[in-house]
């Protein structure tokens, strides 16, 4: 017997995060964050709320930041976001080849550890989109700080009220 998998159906999605060329844009999703390595669009209830290289937005009293461009590469932004009470950061980056991909993954993991904040990383590597979700080791049961890594879309439930 291999590892057991439980599938959970989500009837409501509060926030969807995706890459510009593979957008998840459904009207029933409250907040849509769609970006690439140059710009981010935030949609609320299907309408564009903001377009910028970095954005702070609230959803149900939970503030988050989304970032792209060079800002996404520097730890300064993740500490800045934390200081502005953001509970998580969505970052968009692009790289070529396996070496660049590993660089992006390690950086995102490191930002989560040093700033003590969850990082949802959307990476386009040689034309393919990858997702990585990282959290501070101390707050995560698995003790490696990696919540999800993969190229398929993933649903997850995070309680930011109990895990600030």
């Amino acid at each position: 017997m291999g590892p057991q998998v439980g599938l959970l159906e989500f009837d409501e999605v509060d926030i969807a995060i995706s890459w510009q060329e593979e957008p998840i844009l459904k009207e029933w999703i409250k907040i849509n964050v769609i970006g690439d390595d140059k710009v981010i669009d935030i949609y609320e209830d299907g309408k564009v709320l903001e377009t910028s290289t970095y954005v702070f937005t609230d959803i149900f009293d939970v503030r988050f930041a989304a970032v792209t461009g060079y800002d996404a590469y520097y730890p300064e932004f993740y500490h800045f976001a934390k200081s502005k009470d953001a509970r998580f950061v969505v970052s968009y980056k692009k790289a070529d080849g396996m070496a660049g991909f590993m660089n992006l993954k390690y950086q995102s993991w490191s930002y989560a550890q040093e700033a003590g904040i969850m990082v949802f990383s959307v990476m386009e590597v040689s034309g393919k989109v990858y997702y990585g979700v990282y959290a501070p080791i101390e707050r995560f049961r698995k003790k490696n700080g990696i919540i999800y890594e993969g190229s398929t879309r993933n649903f997850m439930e995070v309680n930011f009220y109990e895990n600030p």
Partner: protein
Amino acid sequence: MKILDGLFIKNLDMVLKGIKGEYLSSNIKGKSSFRIMSYQFDFKPFSTPDEAIYFINARIREILRYLPRIVVFPRYTANLFLGLLPFSKKRLHTEKGLELSSRFYTILKSFYIELVNKIGKITGVTFVSGTVFSEEEEIVVIYAGDDVHVFTNEDSTKVVNFEGYKLAFLFPDETMDYKKPRLLQEMDVEVFITSENWEDENEWVMRKGMWARSQTLGIFGINSAMVGNIFGKEFFGTSFVSAPAVLTKNFTGFVVKLNDHKEKGVAIADINMDVIEEYSRSLPKTYRKYWSFTWGGNS
């Protein structure tokens, strides 16, 4: 403590007389590619002066064999010599060991600075040695360019010049976020050295310091770890040389890393300063717009 001031140093002088290190420095200076040796020691305090002399002698011979330009010993190395005090060896593996270290701190410090000076002169390499550790203060001793530099954990920057480059030592808490390394990067520091060890055996926890800074800031990092039972606590660690993943073999972010978290060993790596400088130049300095936030509180 007479044994350290008199007998030990005298014996060491006699042992080191036959070792010639001059050829080493003249052979390897002036290249942008150079070798690093980062030691990992198990905390087993010396029982006799002979044991200590054998230990130092063996390390010097290794250094002369592998011809590095930077050698790093971990924190607590000087505390190994406290084992030469009568009835002290067992206490170094209990909480009382720290008290003992504090009581003999001044003597241990002056003795160890003299020792590093001798090893530095003999080998002719840049020699970074952590450290005398006590309840009040911790020091690091760096032999570079024929001078001995002594820094404590109170010094805000611990930077020395070595052969046209700058090298900085960071105490472990300074490696846990970007602030101090970024400040030093702005001062053209190329190589960062620390001595981290952890009470947690989880390798991911061990990656949170210097390894993570190499990935996010694009720097060469060197860690030298002291493992084992130190003053009543079990410590794990791994000695390594780290760099941005894109510059490392198999993209691990490690140029070299010892795999055993509990045993002694030495990590040896060749690094090229031109490569890291080129990588650094490829990253725009847009982070400077956050300086008022970083250094002046929230903006």
